[in-house]
């Protein structure tokens, strides 16, 4: 503390040493961060999960769900309805079922004005029924939702989920212990329906103006405390996969995730995380290295899913509204062995709903920021954040070193120093302009997709226009620095600013979406450090060019395609995927308010551009 509060003369030494050995330190810190990150899933670092919220009382009551035969009857009836009308949701059938069970039943209409076309609109309709709590006054609610899929859908049918939900509704209707309203929601058009329903429930809009017209709801059930999204793909279930990654990498409270896993465990339902069961279940002796490698892969699956910022189920859209939600996906049992039945899964859901009903307060006790390396092991924010902290601080260290070298070159006389200071302050103008221009370009980039889709006539496909627009914009920005001329001193100053901004962006993102920050750090940090130097200029330019956010996405998609579809025509498939990815990123931004595009365009791209100027101009 005295070092900090009252630095005497001699204590300048640490700073000096830091600056003097900054290259070694940077390398050390980067490697340490990397090692830290990869050590996270080890059993010595991660901890066993536990319940923080005592009022959940999971699995304390005896299950009473016995409507599994009713669910089977409903499933057969629903499948008939679907085959009779494969494109539309069987509204009359669903409404009749809800009414017969005795719920307050409502429909909800919404319209999507497609953001990349001037006159293209899609309509949809959700169905929901509210079970009014006998022991409450509609101040709180719990949602159980199922996305409905017709037989023409690209995804497997969730008819089994609808049937089980109705059976659970019938069971719950007869119980008197509900203190929170239960809302049974069947959504149309996958995530769009869920988003529209949530926006209508909260009478708000998260995306761009007038894109998703979410309509209005006739009835509500108070503040939603938690939600469970159910996707059962069959009535014979091999395992239940618990999906947690939400929009912009938001996660549900760890207590809810633990609750689901624990109740699956209790009812003897095989449960997984990213379709991976725990390593060494039922084995007497476990090889620690293999165990680590297995957990690492599970964690990396989560890291990649979360970093994308796209929810992997309808649950992901609830998080924004302060509603803890998970998706339970039940996969069809194809191999031999006894599957989990409606009876068991029904009991799991009953247990979840009863535990949520017990909640006295909102979920707040357990972690909101964590990584999972198995269904029952977690890594909390306090453990994982140093990894990204170490990596991002290398940039700050480099910035400090460059700044010092800029400030105090080996000049002897006072006059020379004064002149030097003058020069630096003169270069502020050109540097400031460059930084400002970079950010202006970023804001422009955010509008490029919609402009190119609306005003670029290259055929019927708007996504092609988006790709053309973005690629040409990228080409322009790559060539732009050649028009500029900058002094070497100014470049150093620009480099400092670029480094500081990159570090700030990484640290800021890491607080919200750690996986995205750590992946960006791993990729960008070494090259950002490499951007300044005397030798290997060509290599530096090529490297930094490949790190252009758009090109990086293209490279990633190409790699992914060549790994997962090695037999097909890779190029055409990759180009198609690239096109889709860009279009979806804009649509997600405009409809759901996904931050990925805006963060990429307004922060990552300008930083890249600033450093691109440095890389290109430094001789």
């Amino acid at each position, binding site marked *: 503390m005295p070092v900090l509060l009252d630095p005497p003369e001699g204590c300048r030494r640490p700073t000096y040493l830091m600056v003097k050995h900054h290259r070694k330190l940077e390398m050390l810190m980067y490697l340490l961060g990397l090692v830290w990150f990869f050590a996270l899933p080890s059993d010595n670092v991660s901890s066993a999960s536990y319940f923080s919220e005592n009022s959940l009382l999971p699995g304390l009551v005896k299950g009473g769900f016995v409507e599994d035969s009713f669910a089977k009857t409903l499933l057969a009836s629903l499948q008939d309805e679907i085959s009779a009308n494969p494109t539309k949701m069987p509204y009359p059938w669903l409404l009749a079922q809800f009414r017969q069970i005795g719920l307050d039943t409502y429909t909800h209409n919404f319209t999507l004005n497609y953001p990349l076309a001037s006159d293209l609109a899609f309509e949809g309709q959700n169905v929901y029924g509210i079970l009014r709590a006998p022991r409450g006054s509609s101040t709180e609610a719990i949602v159980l939702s199922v996305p409905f899929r017709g037989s023409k859908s690209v995804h497997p049918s969730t008819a089994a989920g609808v049937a089980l939900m109705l059976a659970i509704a019938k069971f719950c209707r007869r119980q008197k212990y509900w203190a929170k309203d239960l809302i049974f929601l069947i959504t149309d058009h996958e995530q769009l329906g869920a988003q529209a329903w949530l926006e209508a429930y909260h009478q708000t809009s998260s995306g761009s103006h007038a894109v998703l017209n979410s309509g209005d709801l006739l009835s509500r059930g108070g503040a939603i405390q938690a939600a469970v999204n159910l996707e059962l793909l069959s009535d014979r279930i091999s395992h239940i996969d618990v999906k947690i990654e939400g929009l912009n990498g938001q996660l549900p409270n760890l207590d809810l995730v633990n609750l689901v896993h624990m109740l699956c465990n209790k009812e003897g339902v095989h449960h997984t995380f990213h379709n991976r069961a725990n390593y060494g279940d039922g084995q007497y002796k476990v090889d620690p290295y293999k165990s680590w490698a297995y957990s690492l892969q599970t964690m990396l699956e989560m890291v990649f899913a979360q970093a994308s910022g796209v929810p992997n189920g309808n649950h992901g859209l609830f998080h924004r509204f302060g509603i803890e939600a998970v998706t339970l996906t039940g996969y069809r049992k194809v191999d031999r062995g006894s599957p989990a039945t409606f009876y068991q899964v029904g009991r799991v859901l009953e247990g979840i709903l009863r535990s949520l009903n017990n909640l006295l307060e909102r979920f*707040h006790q357990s972690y909101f920021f964590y990584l999972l390396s198995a269904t029952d092991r977690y890594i909390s924010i306090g453990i994982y954040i140093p990894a990204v902290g170490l990596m991002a601080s290398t940039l700050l260290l480099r910035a400090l070193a460059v700044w010092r070298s800029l400030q105090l070159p080996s000049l002897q006389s006072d006059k020379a120093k004064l002149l030097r200071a003058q020069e630096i302050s003169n270069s502020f103008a050109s540097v400031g302009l460059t930084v400002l221009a970079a950010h202006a370009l970023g804001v422009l980039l955010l509008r490029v997709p919609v402009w190119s889709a609306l005003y670029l006539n290259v055929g019927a496909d708007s996504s092609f226009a988006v790709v053309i627009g973005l690629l040409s914009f990228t080409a322009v920005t790559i060539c732009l620095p050649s028009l500029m001329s900058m002094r070497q001193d100014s470049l150093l100053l620009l480099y400092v600013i670029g480094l500081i901004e990159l570090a700030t962006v990484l640290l800021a993102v890491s607080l919200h979406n750690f996986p995205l920050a750590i992946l960006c750090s791993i990729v960008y940090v070494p090259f950002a450090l490499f951007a300044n130097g005397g030798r290997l200029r060509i290599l530096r330019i090529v490297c930094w060019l490949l790190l252009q956010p758009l090109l990086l996405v293209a490279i990633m998609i190409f790699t992914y395609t060549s790994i997962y579809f090695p037999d097909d025509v890779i190029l055409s498939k990759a180009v198609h995927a690239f096109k889709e990815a860009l279009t979806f990123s804009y649509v997600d931004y405009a409809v759901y308010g996904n931050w990925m595009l805006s963060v990429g365009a307004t922060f990552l791209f300008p930083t890249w551009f600033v450093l691109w100027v440095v890389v290109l101009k430094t001789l």
Partner: protein
Amino acid sequence: MIVWAVFTLILSSVSALGQSGLYGDEFHEELVLKQLPSGHVYSYFQFTTLWENGGDQPNHHCHLFPQSLSEVLHLYNVDEMHLSLTGGLWRHENWGYPVVSAPPGAELWAWFKEGTHDVDKKWTLLSNALSGLFCASLNFINPQQSPSPKYSFAPLGAYGSASQNRSLLRYSTLPREIVCTENLTPFKKLLPCDSKKGLSSLLNAGNIHNANYHSLGIHVRPQCKDENCHETVLELKQTVSLVYDLIILGQESRDWSFRKLFGVGLAGPCPLAKSSKIYVDCSTNATTFDYNLSPDPTEFINSNRGGYNTVFAVYDIKKTHIINMFSVSATHKGPRVQSIISPPVIHATRYIVGYGQEHGGIVTKIHNNHWKEIDITLFENIPWFLPTYYHTLKITANGGKQVLKPYAKHYLPGRDRSRPYTLEFLVTLPPRSVTEIYLEFDYSFLKWQEYPPDANHGFYVGAAAITTLLPHTKNYTGVPIDGSTFSSSINASRDTYPVTLHTEILLVTLPTPDFSMPYNVICLACTVVALAFGPLHNHTTKRLQMLDPSEETKGVIANLRQRLNSFLTQSTKAKEQSSPAPSEVIKSPQKEEAACGSKVTSRKKDRAAKSS
């Protein structure tokens, strides 16, 4: 045997005293049963006590009127009082209108007598007394949180509307109040027969609090003694409203009976009661439902009220010869039919919009299903911790297409910790419309002691009250203002039918600090970082520069003292000046100066060299 005979004689004479009207006091007990279109069963108990000269003398004998309550009323100058303790929400859309409406939780409003000076103090004392009387947390009502509505909650008593000095009215709700057995027991003790005999013996706590909606009500008002209304009596209405869900009560059966609803049968009427009647609304029998009532009722009454016909099966318990236990039961015939529920003329819903913990909005939606315009009064009472913005008030109908202009408006902005935000207005709802009232607010950040132990549960906002006059009696069951008992509502056609609706209560999540160990750690860590930041910033940005002590600017006094000193000790000073004083400042070794290579040290070196 003789003793027994004498005892019976005395008992009967005492009971006859009560009934005979020697004092002009009356007690009536009534029970109304109605099968609601949604399949729920609504049972409404009303115990009416009329106390002649009740309001006149403070020490008047009470007879049938509960003394504990009468003392409270006299002591605090209460003219009219309405208290309700409710669990659950009345679903107007499915159930129509109740006989008396009440919001979830506790609601208390009272009119004080003309000429009461310290209304606020009396109000506090009244709520505290009632708190003790009913074992409810009414003592949390304080004058600061109790507005005086300007248009709503008009007095219901005789002569009440003659002088409406609104400063005599206080209104308050406790939306979080949970109603249970502890409130029911003192409630029953106020009855002349307690729960020993009569309809009140049906009020079994275990069965009542199992209902989807249960509401206890105490309503006191002065009422006309006769039609001429030259004299008044004090009327006490004790009401119990219950809504049972038959699906929850009995597995698949739609049949109901006393035993199923209340757990017991009826042993007989309260001997002190002037009338003891059970009304079963059979209007929907043979149309929506099809059931047999057993035993056969004493009579059927056709009530034609405002164009709508209602059939009541009446059981007069006084006239019924009860051998063992009396129970009314309905046995359904035929298959279960899902009936279409037609919502009542006016119903409303209220909810919070927006997300996050910065700002939000309160929306009240009022449905008018009538073919004509209807005037309503809306009263919103929003707690101080949700500061509302009056300029954001929007009253629109039919999806925002039609902007409505209220013809009277009253807004009282709140003050932190001392006054709630109240908004009241009169507006005409267009025919067949949905009117939306939208008001924006901020979530305020409370002081840390102001959070309750379950801070993350959220905070409650009381219900809004809508008062209106209905044009017809569809779904309407209210007792007319000039009547006391439920029987007075039979054939009581009037021009309009007053009704008060209460909306949902709301649960809002205020920004809540994380009251946990990590929170404390974060606070501590932030403090440390804040302390460290300043020196670090200093260290990296500032440079030390030496100043010559002789050039230092000093204060006026210091200057004077120095001059004085120099004047006094001129001769000694001259000797001292030759020794190098500033060189003491430099302590840093030469080695480090070279290592740091900074400007500061080099300057120091210069100065040291100069001074030496």
